């Protein structure tokens, strides 16, 4: 008897497997390997950048500079580095915008329901949105010419996603920005961190630092506590500069919306949230996933709204948001340190959490005056 499988049967699947592997491999490769292919993209982006920015950047950056910018840490909460760094930045740029006002500008009542391709699912809190409402134009630089879909950065004009060839080139560009008091943000070791200065040895970054702020008596209800930047050397920087060396910057290009306009937008969003949260729960029940910046659950929004309405004397509404924040906190604590849970467990957690806050959000929505 003839042993083995016929070559005719094996060759075609073999070629298909090899071809598929090669295709997958090339589509996943670091684009830097094919640097030459993206020269056109690079030239187009860099030329656009010169016309898009109002600020004229210097030929060479200052040799060293440091701004007295802090961050605001929410004690006990993880995952809000993006708010903690950006709230400190805006406080420096616009001293009347404190943490709560910044959050108020960042869509604290919005629940997104994937209404179009550019909208995510889930909480709408977004620091880039706050900057745009405050009259800034957002840009993002990256050493990868393939930018994330617009739903990831809905408040950045797709033309403002700029490709740089190397991290060194980006660093020089960031120094030019800082020289002109435009403070960039990088993602360093997983945390959004504003780059508030540099010298010959390295850079100062405002990176969420619990060791400076978290004490036993402080928790999610404590008003965010200022913390100081940390220094990292140029040798350390490339190792943990995440996601294709991405960085963001905000240029002041217009007037900010008034707090009254923002109030009306938030009121409208609060109303929409009551129907959107149901759509989101249905979406999750059908197997959808929440992919957003709001790590786990949006406690900062509820706490800000609690403080906001307390100051305005609307205590019933304030307490409603405090109740929501407490539910979120209980849910968050119930997770323990389980950050590696499965997709289906995460989905169950979201459904459970949203179902618990849904009736309260509905009540709160009609209490906005």
């Amino acid at each position: 008897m003839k042993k083995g499988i016929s070559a005719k049967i094996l060759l075609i699947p073999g070629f298909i497997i090899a071809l598929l592997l090669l295709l997958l491999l090339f589509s996943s490769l670091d684009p830097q390997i094919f640097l030459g292919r993206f020269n056109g993209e690079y030239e187009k982006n860099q030329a656009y950048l010169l016309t898009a920015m109002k600020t004229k950047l210097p030929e060479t950056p200052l040799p060293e500079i440091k701004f007295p910018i802090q961050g605001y840490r929410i004690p006990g909460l993880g995952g809000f580095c993006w708010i903690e760094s950006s709230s400190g930045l805006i406080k420096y740029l616009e001293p009347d915008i404190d943490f709560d006002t910044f959050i108020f500008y960042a869509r604290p009542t919005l629940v997104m329901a994937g209404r179009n391709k550019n909208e995510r699912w889930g909480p709408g809190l977004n620091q880039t949105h706050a900057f745009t409402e405050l009259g800034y134009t957002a840009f993002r630089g990256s050493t990868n010419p393939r930018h994330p879909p617009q739903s990831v950065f809905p408040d950045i004009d797709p033309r403002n996603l700029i490709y740089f060839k190397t991290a060194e080139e980006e660093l020089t560009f960031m120094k030019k920005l800082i020289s002109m008091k435009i403070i960039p943000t990088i993602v360093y070791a997983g945390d959004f961190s504003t780059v508030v200065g540099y010298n010959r040895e390295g850079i100062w970054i405002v990176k969420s630092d619990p060791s400076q702020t978290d004490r036993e008596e402080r928790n999610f209800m404590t008003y965010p506590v200022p913390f100081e930047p940390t220094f990292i050397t140029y040798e350390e920087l490339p190792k943990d500069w995440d996601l294709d060396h991405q960085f963001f910057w905000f240029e002041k290009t217009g007037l900010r919306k008034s707090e009254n306009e923002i109030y009306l937008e938030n009121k409208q969003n609060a109303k929409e949230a009551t129907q959107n949260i149901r759509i989101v729960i249905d979406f999750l029940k059908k197997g959808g996933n929440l992919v957003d910046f709001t790590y786990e659950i949006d406690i900062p929004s509820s706490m800000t709204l609690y403080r906001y309405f307390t100051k305005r004397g609307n205590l019933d509404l304030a307490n409603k948001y405090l109740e929501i924040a407490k539910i979120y906190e209980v849910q968050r604590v119930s997770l323990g340190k389980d950050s590696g849970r499965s997709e289906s467990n995460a989905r169950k957690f979201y459904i459970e959490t949203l179902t618990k806050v849904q009736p309260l959000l509905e009540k709160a929505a009609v209490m906005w005056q």
Partner: protein
Amino acid sequence: MKNKNISALLSLLFPGLGQLYIGKYIDAVVFMAGASVLWFAIFRRGYYLMTFDNPKSFLVWGALGIIYLYSIFDAYRKTK
């Protein structure tokens, strides 16, 4: 009578296929499992293993290379 070149070509396309061709089924399963695990790791960790700036990427690609070469050599040698 099996062809040595065809068995080597099959193992080049994917480790273990050459062994299937010559009837060494257990060897085929071992080669296929090894290569599949490494390919899975490469696609799973994607960028991390493709930038070649860390020891693990050299380790995984090196192991995959050895499996391919050994599978080709083994299939060629054992073809009768």
